[in-house]
Structures are given as structure tokens and as C-alpha cells.
């Protein structure tokens, strides 16, 4: 099956037919939403935090060029090498160049959506460099030749039985479906890899222009080992991840863990402010940071949609989305999924590739309520839908349908006559059943037309 966003419809059909997937996603998102709410209930200033974070992100984005230059200057003072990459290809070349220059044979990675975005693993593996994900969920999906299905819980779509079988098949260990045992197996294998890795690659949750440093938030400690054990560290970061001042971080650290995992605080926050081996006798000798554009400056051009660059990749919008809960992450066809993915895909990949993505939302606004950065996701999805229509990337049938519909709405008499027609014809359906609608009635019944019609009902109510 083709797994690009363009083929979302086929991916969705497959997901909807998979009861196990829907149960797994429903259970995991449900428990995260519950834990999140418990934490939020104990933070009386939650709404003010969201407001504050919005204002910080707005300020960063509206002064992005200045912040980036300050960040680069301060990184240089801390002996961090800053690289600028216009697109995924350039970022991959920079990273493989560092690896080749240093004769790297093994790379350990901590979870980074930005490296997923540039498809880094396959590129490095094809160059003969062993490249291993070390976050348990990421390790599982890498073993399964998949991409993550959730921003925070990458293997959400797999059951413990699936993972037990996967470990047994791929790692040659006796079958077990006990999570603690599965973790023990992964930990033992990965600990050896960590101790003998040449390069560590990570993303960056936040970077600080004023300090020339960055941090990674995590729970497993694999990110810390990725930073501190290998001789070289490379971080790949979208240009929007900056904060002007490290002192603003507590606002984000209060919002991110409850939104992401339903925790009051993540287990670890690791700060990297340059090579440390000389000073402390451990940690990296070289630290590189790759600042990635890859379409972000295109997003910045839109005065409203630039708000989607505020995303802190917490996944709260996914957990609250009724559509995501039904179709899971792989149906979106790319590394970003859920409401934020639906908004980012057409912006990063273009309207033709992402023509279905903004429609994968019921516009119920649950995502906007959950988003810690207060991104108006339903509003942006509507705007993106418009863009897809304006660029004629919607289907021919839809275009004709809407032309007919709009000509009807502008002719009241014709509208009145024709809207009576379906209710009249409905009488002739066998057993009084509703009309079959192609592409809809296969799994559920279409609603019966009301013989009174909207107009009559409206005026009845109005008269009352």
C-alpha cells in the first residue's frame, strides 16, 4: 500500500477495518487525556500559562531572524558548530558528512520528529552506518520498519502481543508479552550500543538564543545517554524551536509534560551548552546543531498560518481528536499526524500531496482547547481546505457538486422545489429505508430526509 498523504483514503480504510488498532489507540489516548486533566485541575493558572506561551512564541516567530542570529553567535561562543540547512537533503548531507569525516560506524539516536521529517535513518543506514533509535517506542517501530504513529507514543498502534512477536522474530529472543520483560531485552541490547557509539543524534525541544544552548525533555534517560556517551553530538532542530531567553523555559516546562504524557514533570530535562569532554572528562568533544528550514519559511509567509509554527510537539491535539482516535497516526501518511499533522502536511509537502489532510478533522475544536500553545487549529484547517479548493486540488466531482449547490442556493424558488424532491422520492425506497449514498452507506445508514424540510421547520420555530 502507498503510504503517502496523497493516499490517505486507502490508509484510512485499512485503519478503520483494524479493530485492534482502534482499540489500542482509543485506550492509550483516553488514559493520557484523563491524566492530563488531573494535572491541569491542580494548576490554577493553566489558562494564563497558555496565554503566556502564546505570547512568547508570537514574539519569537515575529523576530525569528534576530533570534537565530543571536543563537548562532552564542553557540559559537560555546564552541557549538551551527549548520544551516535549507531542506531535508542538505540536512542529511551535513550529518552524513560529519559522520564520514569522523569515520563513524554506529550512531545512537534519541526521539526526534525533525529527523523523521528528513528521513535521516534510512539515509545513514544506506551509507553503511548502523543507526539505532533508542527510545523504546521508536526502537519498536524501527524494528517493525514503520514510522511512529503518534508524536509522543510512537508504537501506540501495536499491542504487547505484536511487540512480543516482533522481538521474538527480529531479535531472536524467547516470546514474552510482558512489558517489563520486553523493556529489559531492549535495555540490555541498547546499553551495549550506547557504550560503543561514535555519534549521538537528537532533536531539541527548546533552544535558547541568549545562552547559545538547547535542551531535550524525556522520560527514559536514553536522550541523556545519547548526549553524554558518544564523542560527537549532533542535534537537528527546526528554526522555529527557539526561545529568546532560557528564563522563559519554566512556562513551557509547566505546559509540555501534562499535555504530552499527563505528567506534572517529565523525568529528565537535559541541557547542552557545548562540548564538555575537556572540562568534565565526559560528554561530547564536538557538538553540532543543524538549523532546518525545510518549508518553515514558507509557512512563515502566511500571516495567520504562521501560528502553526508555535507547535511544541506535545501530541495533546492528537489525544483529543475524535478522528485521530478512529484512524490512528499512519493514516495521515507522514511523520506529523492528528490535527497538527493535518495542518502541517499541506504546508510542508504542498497542496497536491496534502490535499486530503486538512479534511481529516471534524472541526469540533477539541484540538484547539487542548493545545497548550493555543494554536487555532480548526481555523487553520478551514483556511487550508480553502487553499486546496483554490488551487483546484479537490476532486472534479466535488467541484461540480459545489457549483450546482451554489447555483441552487442563489435561486430560492428552484431551491425550494428541489429540496422537496429527496423527501418525496424517499417514500419509494423499499421498507422506508434511507437512500444509499456511495462511499458512505457501506458502513452506516444515511439520515432520512425530513418531509417538512429546513425552511418549514425554521419558520415554525421562528413563529413560536
Amino acid at each position: 500500500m502507498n503510504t503517502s498523504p496523497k493516499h490517505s483514503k486507502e490508509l484510512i480504510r485499512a485503519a478503520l477495518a483494524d479493530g485492534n488498532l482502534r482499540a489500542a489507540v482509543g485506550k492509550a489516548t483516553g488514559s493520557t487525556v484523563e491524566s492530563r486533566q488531573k494535572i491541569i485541575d491542580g494548576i490554577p493558572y493553566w489558562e494564563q500559562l497558555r496565554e503566556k506561551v502564546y505570547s512568547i512564541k508570537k514574539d519569537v516567530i515575529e523576530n525569528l531572524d534576530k533570534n537565530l542570529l543571536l543563537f548562532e553567535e552564542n553557540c559559537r561562543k560555546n564552541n557549538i558548530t551551527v549548520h544551516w540547512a535549507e531542506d531535508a537533503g542538505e540536512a542529511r548531507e551535513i550529518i552524513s558528512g560529519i559522520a564520514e569525516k569522523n569515520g563513524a560506524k554506529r550512531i545512537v539516536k534519541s526521539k526526534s520528529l525533525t529527523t523523521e521529517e528528513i528521513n535521516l535513518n534510512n539515509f545513514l543506514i544506506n551509507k553503511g552506518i548502523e543507526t539505532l533509535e533508542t527510545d523504546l517506542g521508536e526502537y519498536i517501530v524501527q524494528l517493525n520498519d514503520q514510522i511512529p504513529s503518534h508524536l509522543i507514543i510512537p508504537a501506540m498502534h501495536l499491542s504487547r502481543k505484536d511487540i512480543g512477536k516482533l522481538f521474538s522474530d527480529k531479535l531472536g529472543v524467547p516470546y514474552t508479552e510482558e512489558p517489563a520483560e520486553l523493556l529489559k531485552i531492549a535495555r540490555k541490547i541498547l546499553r551495549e550500543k550506547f557504550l560503543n557509539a561514535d555519534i549521538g543524534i537528537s532533536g531539541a525541544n527548546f533552544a535558547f538564543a541568549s545562552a547559545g544552548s538547547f535542551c531535550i525533555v524525556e522520560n527514559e534517560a536514553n536522550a541523556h545517554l545519547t548526549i553524554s556517551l558518544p564523542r560527537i553530538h549532533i542535534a537537528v532542530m527546526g528554526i522555529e524551536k527557539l526561545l529568546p531567553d532560557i528564563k522563559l523555559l519554566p512556562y513551557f516546562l509547566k505546559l509540555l509534560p501534562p499535555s504530552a504524557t499527563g505528567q506534572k514533570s517529565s523525568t529528565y530535562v537535559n541541557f547542552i551548552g557545548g562540548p564538555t569532554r575537556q572540562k568534565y572528562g565526559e560528554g561530547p568533544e564536538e557538538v553540532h546543531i543543524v538549523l532546518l528550514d525545510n518549508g518553515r519559511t514558507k509557512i512563515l509567509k502566511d500571516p495567520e498560518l504562521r501560528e502553526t509554527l508555535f507547535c511544541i510537539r506535545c501530541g495533546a491535539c492528537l489525544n483529543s481528536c475524535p478522528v485521530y482516535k478512529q484512524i490512528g497516526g499512519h493514516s495521515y501518511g507522514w511523520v506529523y499526524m492528528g490535527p497538527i499533522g493535518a495542518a502541517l502536511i499541506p504546508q510542508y509537502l504542498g497542496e497536491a500531496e496534502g490535499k486530503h489532510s486538512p479534511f481529516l478533522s471534524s472541526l469540533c475544536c477539541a484540538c484547539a482547547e487542548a493545545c497548550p500553545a493555543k494554536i487555532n487549529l480548526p481555523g487553520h484547517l478551514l483556511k487550508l481546505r480553502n487553499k486546496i479548493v483554490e488551487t483546484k486540488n479537490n476532486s472534479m466531482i466535488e467541484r461540480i457538486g459545489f457549483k450546482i449547490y451554489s447555483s441552487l442556493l442563489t435561486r430560492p424558488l428552484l431551491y425550494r422545489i428541489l429540496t422537496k424532491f429527496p423527501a418525496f422520492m424517499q417514500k419509494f425506497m423499499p421498507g422506508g429505508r434511507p437512500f444509499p449514498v456511495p462511499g458512505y452507506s457501506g458502513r452506516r445508514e444515511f439520515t432520512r430526509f425530513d418531509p417538512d424540510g429546513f425552511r418549514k421547520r425554521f419558520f415554525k420555530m421562528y413563529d413560536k
Partner: protein
Amino acid sequence: MSSKEKILGRISEALKIKSQLRIIDNSADEKIKSSLKSVTPEKLTDLWSQFKAELEKIAGEYYSFNTEEAAAEFISGVLAELKIDTVSSHSSEMLAAVKERIKEKGIKISDACSLEAGARKQVTAGINASLVSPSFAVADIGQLVFMMDDAETSYPYFLCDNTIAVVKNENIIANQFELFEKAEVEKTKNMFFVTGPSRTADIEKVLVLGAHGPRRLIVINILNK
């Protein structure tokens, strides 16, 4: 033209288009600060009570002792129970007295800082317990703050299965806002925060401790009364 120039050029062009983003309520910060103040205990003992409650919620353990001697007695007991005869540690004034006393009880101390990088990671990874001293404890979330300038190594904390962290009674901070206000900027460049034992819930959301870091975290507050 370099990639940097091209990216910065595109940003400048994009920013010429006036933002249509929401107007911000500037009073948010004041409300956060006053709300924080209202929930922050004033007394040191209350801050530690808050720390203890938060740490225990996330599977950490908390003990306080009046003297280093009593703390050392307890630590030796824990290590004996775990059948551990060596602990990995770092050079810290705070730990000196405790280390001396547990050595007297027959526990060997492996000083990670005295080993060069390659040997340090291999040796430390082979030891099952560590004795560390964080720079601060953060009360409202049960968090420990390790500043590399104070600790000089993170390996004992991350590579050993059981961690015993000894904190000075006065080194408790109400929350992260206070931490970033107090801490020197240089020190914040290389540091790490620890909130409970390492964990994952990546398989069916089942919580398992000891993902890649320690399975057990014991925090000891020495009151020095």
C-alpha cells in the same frame, strides 16, 4: 549565496507581511506569579514536605536524617539489602562525610571523576548503585537539579540501576521559576533535571520503571541539626 543567507532572506521577506495573530492578554504573567506565590509554602520544612509528597507520587523515595552518620547507616543498610558492595560517586564536599562513613562499613567507592572518559563509562555501567549530590531540589514537582559544574559527571546517576541522592537541607527551591532566577546563567548551560526514576509507558501505556536510567531513586535530606 549560502544556505544561511537564503534562509535569513526568506525570513525577512516573510516578516514584511504583517502578522494577523491574536492580540495577547499581557496580564497573564502577573496572574501566574501571584497564583504561584499563593501555593508556595514559605517554611523550609513545608517545602520539603511538598517535595516528599511529589517525589513519592512518581515512585521516588524520600528520607531525612539529622546527621550524616545516621544517613550513612541507612545507606549502608540499603546497599546491604541490595547485595551491593561498590557505589559509583563523584567528588563532592557534600558527600565527603557520608562516603567516609559508608567506607567504614565495608562499601567500596568508585570515584567516576578520577577515570578518563572511556574507562569512566565502562566502569560506571558495571556498578549497580550510585551516590550523588544534586545542586538543588525543586519542591513543587519533586525534582532534582544537577549542575555539571557542581557534579562534574552524570554517569553515576544515569548508568547505575539504583541512585541515592543526598541533598543539603537549605538547597531546596520552590519551583523552576525561582531556580532560573537564582541560578547563574553559565551554570544553566550544562545541567540536567531528574524527576523520579527513569520510566517508559511505550507498550500499551503500561508504566515500567528503569527504562535506560535508574530503576530506583532514593533522596536523602541531611538536616544537620
